[in-house]
């Protein structure tokens, strides 16, 4: 899958019957509602449903793989899978290394969450963030002390235990946690716009795959199915695509 053109040529040699190419979709599986592992041990969530639909439209045969967040880009680059579909915001820094399709989810603001009654000062205290996220570099360059954790779960646990004063993450992911904490956790301060929209990451050399996914996203945006999918997974969030 490094080069679709070559792949297609070889596929013609090999089987002939295989009409669709296999694309390996890489995700993290630990960032609900974007993606998570459900109780059957399968990848589930907004991106699973979206990805399957996109593959159907683009006539690709897709399989799902999970990978730790902090090595998710290196493993795409070295070809362990062919796409990153893991709630990854499009940023300049990442764009230098890999390519992104157009966004399939609008820029989601980041927001701080802290224990109830902690006050607004927490933003300048010890802030937890997931390693290698846009939030981690945001906190590192703000005045606060950043503590990096490998998973989203760990960042929440750190706030609960009082190890960190607050956590900075995407609002959509935090909304679930805050809603279910029974008042233990609250949003603090205003939304912060950090990254761009969320797109599918592909290798820079995979221009053909990128084009096909872009076309599929176009189609889902045009027929309104993408907006419907977002509303379904993000508590009725309204997006105008």
């Amino acid at each position, binding site marked *: 899958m490094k*080069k679709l053109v070559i792949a297609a040529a070889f596929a013609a040699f090999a089987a002939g019957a295989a009409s669709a190419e296999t694309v390996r979709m890489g995700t993290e599986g630990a960032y609900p509602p974007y993606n998570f592992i*459900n109780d059957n041990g399968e990848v589930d969530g907004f991106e699973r449903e979206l990805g399957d639909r996109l593959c159907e439209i683009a006539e690709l045969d897709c399989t799902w793989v999970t990978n730790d967040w902090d090595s998710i880009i290196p493993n795409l680059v*070295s070809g362990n899978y062919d796409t990153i579909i893991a709630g990854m915001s499009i940023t300049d820094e990442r764009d230098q290394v890999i390519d992104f399709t157009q966004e399939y989810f609008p820029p989601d603001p980041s927001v701080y969450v802290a224990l109830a009654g902690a006050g607004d000062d927490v933003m300048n205290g010890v802030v937890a963030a997931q390693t290698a996220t846009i939030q981690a570099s945001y906190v590192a360059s703000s005045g606060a002390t950043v503590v990096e954790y490998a998973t989203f*779960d760990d960042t929440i646990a750190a706030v609960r235990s009082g190890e960190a004063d607050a956590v900075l993450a995407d609002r959509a992911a935090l909304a679930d*946690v805050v809603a279910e904490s029974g008042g233990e956790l609250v949003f603090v301060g205003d939304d912060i716009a950090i990254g761009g929209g969320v797109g599918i990451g592909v290798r820079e*050399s995979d221009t053909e795959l990128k084009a096909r996914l872009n076309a599929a996203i176009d189609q889902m945006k045009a027929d309104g199915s993408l907006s419907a999918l977002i509303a379904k997974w993000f508590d009725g969030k309204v997006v105008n695509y």
Partner: protein
Amino acid sequence: MEMCADPSTLEGFNWWICYLTTGKQQMFYASFGTVLALLALTAPVVLVLGFAGAMARRSRFLPLNWLGAIYTNAVRGIPDIIFFLFVPIAMDQGIEYLRHKIKCPDVTEPIRQGNDFVVCAAAKMPLGTSPQWVHEVYGFTLALVAFAIVFGAFAANTLYGAMKAVPRAQLETAEAYGMTPRQVFWRIEVPQMWVYALPGLSNLWMILIKATPLLFLLGVEDIVYWAKELGGAKTSRFDYPHPDWRVYYFGVLLIFYLLMTWGSEKVFTRISRRLSHGQATLGGAADAQVTA
């Protein structure tokens, strides 16, 4: 199970029955098999590599001798975790590089394009069209090789020492019987050395058991991966919401490892008693007195 169809209505004992039998939970149980499989498959490879390493160090052919010495000493001077992080990536890229050179000689584009490591589709390992299980087996194999390289060096050292520990008199007797050096090595030295190698090898086995949680770092979905995944707090988006239970899951892992090392120790004590039967060692002599 039928009663598990609607988890939100479950309570108490039934909730636990259903929770402990979800597909995800079963993958956790199965991953214990992954760890055992790694142990079972690595051990023989380690022995073979260790034997080769020991032979290299005994070799009178200098480059081979140096190779053996560099291999065993380098591995022991560097933390195993660094090998585990480095070897799989290096091997993967190395294999694909070679396959690319062989299978696609006409492709003129460079393999390293900026940050991308680009080889032709036919050179991919495994092929992009392969089913998921092939990818998993491949990843597992890379992990196995990384383990074998590290522990092979330790085994080489143990076996090298054991070969040297075989009493000189035994070898001289064999020579006096007119055996060639080759025959002496294979018929006398190798069979005799195991008794001397056993303490070191049993120790190595213990180390191997205790190194298996590092599989997690190699991207294999082992018991540590599932313990983290299952133990993490679950919101009601999941069928079985619960708070952070990782401490209990890791407690289970701790007990598993304690049982493994405890059981292994018992087995090795038995083997050692067997092996030292009739040997010209202290253990063997004591044994002979008891049975006589």
